[in-house]
Structures are given as C-alpha cells and as structure tokens.
C-alpha cells in the first residue's frame, strides 16, 4: 500500500452538544480513491467536515502530508490542498458558472488548459458558462460542484454523496469523470451510499458505523465477500442495488 496522504487517528468530533465521532482511525493512501461506506448517521459526512475543520475536535489527530492540521482554520486547510464537495453541493446560486469557477481558482486566473479538461469532463458547464448557477439542474449543479473542486490541482478531494438524487445517466457521467480523475492519480475520499457506484470506483474502502471505522481494506476483497457485505452493510446494500 502506498504511503498515506492523510491519516486520522482516534478522532472524536462534536457538533453542538452532540458527540458524533467516537475515535475514527482512517488512512488515505496517496493516489487512490477511497470509498467511505456506512448507513445514515454513521458519521461519514461528519468525518469529511472534521477534516475540513468544520467541527470541534476534542480528541484525536488529523494529519495531512505529515503535518498535524487538527487545529487549523478551514481556509488554511483548503489552501493546503484539500477540496471539499459537500452533500448540499454548496454552489453559489446567485453567481454564474463562470464566477463559481473563478472563485474556486483561489490562487489566480483559471488555467485555460485545465478549464478545457474540465469542460471535457462536464460539457454542460461550457454551455451554461454565463448562466446563474441557481438555474442549473440538479445534475449540472453537482457537476459544477465537482468542477469547482478540481479547477485547480489539489492533493486531496473530499466528495460527499455526489450521486444523491441524480438520474442514472448522469451518475454514469459522474462515474466516468471520477475514473478519469483516478487515472490521473488524484487522491479522493468519496462518501457514497450507492454501492454499485462505489464498487466501480473504489480501490480501498472504509466502512463506518456509530462514529467509528469498523472495517478498512481493499474494495476488491469486500466486493467478493458477500458475507462480509452482509455483516457490514446489512440490508442497506440491497436497497441500493
């Protein structure tokens, strides 16, 4: 296994008065796509938010590229090379597609070649370049949210349930886009409920339950072992097939 780009050790996290993460241990190998699975409320989204510095972390340690980033403020974490696509996509509805991407390219003007590559992944964005993002369809918004995360090269992408509420044809487009990102050896942490989508993309997998990682290993092994699937994911797997 490659050297981990990010390492979470015994991370606890609170949101308000609720204790959500109870000691998460997770390693993200460099250049691999890791899928985070688990039932609703297991703490998957909170794990991503914790990495971004959006929750209180009373105990534990988040390391990125060998540095302890647990106490860093969100903007600093983002600038150190982590892009986050939250579950609600968080695009700026009142700004155009173009302005959304320009904002995401925080270090300067958008690189032309990179933009063409993004347009290649998501042609709809080119078509609606000057349209207010609020007028896009759900799928297009998701594409914009992902495009925003990759408009500049980042070391790590955190993507929270990109397929949620999308039509199958758009999910296929997204899968192709993630495949291409994977081919470029991007390190990605993908939270996903859709097991087929996850299986098609993931190299490594971590399964969460009740605020902890209860299984970590290769996706291939989990995909083959139906008993393990049953044990870890229970009926939730069947519901999404």
């Amino acid at each position, binding site marked *: 296994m490659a050297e981990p780009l990010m390492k979470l050790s015994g991370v606890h996290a609170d949101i308000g008065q609720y204790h959500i993460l109870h000691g998460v241990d997770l390693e993200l190998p460099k250049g691999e796509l890791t899928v985070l699975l688990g039932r609703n409320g297991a703490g998957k989204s909170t794990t991503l938010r914790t990495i971004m510095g959006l929750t209180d972390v009373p105990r534990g340690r988040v390391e990125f590229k060998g540095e302890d980033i647990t106490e860093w403020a969100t903007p600093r974490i983002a600038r150190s090379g982590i892009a986050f696509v939250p579950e609600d996509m968080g695009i700026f509805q009142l700004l155009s597609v173009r302005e959304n991407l320009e904002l995401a390219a*925080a270090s300067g003007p958008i690189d032309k070649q990179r933009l063409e590559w993004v347009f290649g992944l998501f042609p709809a964005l080119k078509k609606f370049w000057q349209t207010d993002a609020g007028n896009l369809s*759900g799928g297009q918004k998701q594409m914009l949210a992902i495009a925003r995360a990759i408009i500049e090269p980042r070391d790590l992408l955190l993507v929270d349930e990109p397929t949620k*509420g999308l039509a199958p044809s758009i999910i296929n487009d997204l899968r192709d886009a993630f495949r291409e990102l994977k081919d470029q050896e991007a390190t990605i942490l993908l939270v996903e409920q859709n097991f087929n989508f996850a299986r098609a993309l993931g190299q490594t997998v971590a399964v969460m339950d009740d605020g902890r990682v209860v299984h970590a290993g290769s996706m291939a092994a989990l995909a083959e072992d139906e008993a393990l699937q049953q044990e870890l994911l229970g009926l939730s797997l069947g519901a999404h097939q």
Partner: protein
Amino acid sequence: MIHSLLSGDYPRSRLLTVLLIAIFIGLALGPFLFSGTVAFRTMGLIVVFILVVAAYDLMLGYTHVVSFAHLMFFGFGAYGVAMALDSMGSNFTAIAVGTGASLLASIVVALLLGLLSLRVKAIFFALVTLAIAFSFMVLVNQLYTLTGGEDGMRVAVPRELGPAFRLDEPLTGFSLLGWLWGVVTNPLGLVEVTREAFFDVRANGRLLMYYVSFVITLVLFLGMLRLVNSPFGRVLLAIRENEFRAEALGYRTVYYRTAVVVLASALATIGGVMFALVTRYITPESTLDFELAVFVLLMCVIGGMGTLYGAVIGATVFLIAQNYLQDLLGVLSGWMEHVPVLAMAAPLFGSDRWLLWFGVLFVLSVYFFPTGIVGQLREWAARRSRAGEELVEGEKVDEPASHGA
C-alpha cells in the same frame, strides 16, 4: 469607455438607465437648473449621501454586515475637519490635516471593530457598533469645549469655499421645472415665462464646493463599482451567499469582511468631511443621530440593497421626499382646510407630519418593491427579456434530472 467606467456593471433596465442619467444630469447641471437655496442644499446633501449610502451598501448589501456605526465614521470626518478648521484657521492645510486625521482614526477603529467582533455572530457585531456609536455621540455632546456640544459648531471653511468668494459676473441658469410649470399654467405668456425662467447663479465658493463634492462622489462611486465587480467583489458575494463554502474554498472571510468595514468607514468619513464643508454647520443631531442612521438604512433599502445604483436612487428619492414632502403636505393641508368635510383631516396632512407619510410610503415601497427600486426595475427588465428569449429559443436550461438514484 462607458464599459470600463462602469466596470461592465450596467443598470440592466431601460427605465433605471433613464433614471440614473436624469439624476446624473440633474446633479451635474443642478445649480443651473434649479433655483433657490432649498434646491441647492438638497442637491448638496444628495451628492454627499450617495457616497455615504453606497459605502453602507458595501457592508449591508454586498456582505450582509449590519453596522450601526456608519454614521459615527461620518461624524469622525465632519467633526475632524470642523475641529481642524477651528484650531488651525480657515485654510486648506487644516482641511487636509482634519481629513487625514479622521481617516486614520476611522481606519484604526474600523479595523479593531472588524477583527475583534466580526469573528462572531452578525448580531454581536451590530450590537457592538450600536454601543460604540452611542458612546461617541455622548462624547461629542459632553466635550462641548471642543465640539460645541448639542449646539454644534460652525465650520469655518476657507474663503475660497464660502459665499464670500465670488466671480464678479453672475452666471445664468435656466429653471426648467419653473419654465414647464409656467408653460402649463400660462401658455399664452410664453415669452414672459421664458424670460422669468432665467435666473442668476451666484458663482461663489459654495458652488465650487458643490462641484468638488460632486466630482469626489462620482470618482469614488465609480471606484466602488469597480471594486464590487472585481475578484474581491465576487468573494464578497460568495461570503454573503454561503460563508462556510467561501471558507472551504480557502477564503479567510473575517479578513474580507473587515476590509469591507474599513473601506466603508473610510468612505463614510470622506462623506462626513464633504458634509461639513458643504453645509458649514454641524451638530450631533445632523451628523450622528440615530434617526440619521435609520435614514441611511432606509435610503439603502428603498434604492435596493446589494446594488450600488440603489444608493443613487435611494438617496435621491429619500432626500427629495424629505425636503419637499413637507412643502407638498403644507400645500395639501392648506387646501384641505378650505374644503368643509376634509378640513377635519387637514391636521393629519400638516407639513410637520411628513415623517408619518414618509413611513406610509416606505411601508408601501417595501411591500411592492421588496428588492428595492433597482431590484424591481431589473426584475421587470429580466422578465421581459426572458419572455422575448423564450419566444425565440423555445425551451431552456432544464435537463432530465433529480429522480433519485
């Protein structure tokens, strides 16, 4: 040329464009179009408050920062320059020193205010600014040896900016409204009406000061327009829409907000300096009063928050209403007193009731124009152009989506 002056931010509504051009011409040629001291004073106030309200809108409309201390910074400028002129004599050095010192004070105070209190909830910032603004007003009232207390202080402007400095030959103005009124009421006496419409414009220092403020406001306004359409301005819009997202993209929102508060405060200070030099008499009531802070807020809301053009429209509409609604009501109630049934209601329309009627107008305008005058005009224009486009293009953006995986 126009594109770069307006930074590509066009009014985006034909009616709005017409209104803005009318206001621009009205203010640029104002002293030669409208006779009388009330008109001259109103124009001077409009010029000053366009700047003050636009600066306020940078905070309120573009960044959703509610500050009650905007008028305090305005007061810094007004009292700074007045006190400098008082102690150093009526010269331009005093104006420069007063302006420089009050700008410095504004920037330091705004910086502290921003860095200390913008980290927390917006309501906290609003309350802190309210407390500070209130203490400053008490301070100005108490330090009467320096500020004249409640009586206020005369602003001893240099001779070149006062009424004593004048050209020998008066200039000539033409009262367009007077002429039109004359033509309507007395169509037969066209020659006489036209002759009466010409009036002398005293080419004195006050006229010079008016044009100096006009140019300063124009330049600063175009500068603000440039700013909000720059990458910096886009970050402000992003923060306004979703602060956490802006942070997750790597923007330190506290710094951006603080920068806006500092900038808006500095602009308000310049507005205060201009106010003192234009009106030549300042009191706590005319510069720092809570009522005035509410008026600035109203101008911003009536014009339309989040668009600088709204400040132009809001300040103009409000100040014209404030200065002329009283006259209009006076005429109305005078007329009503002579009509048997209406006479009972006449006191309701007395000129001192202008604030009541302004309040009614305000409620109606918020009800019918929730996005302000500018927002509403733009919405109408957008709806019209959308309707036109749909006729041409057929269908739009929607793609099959949102059906669950």
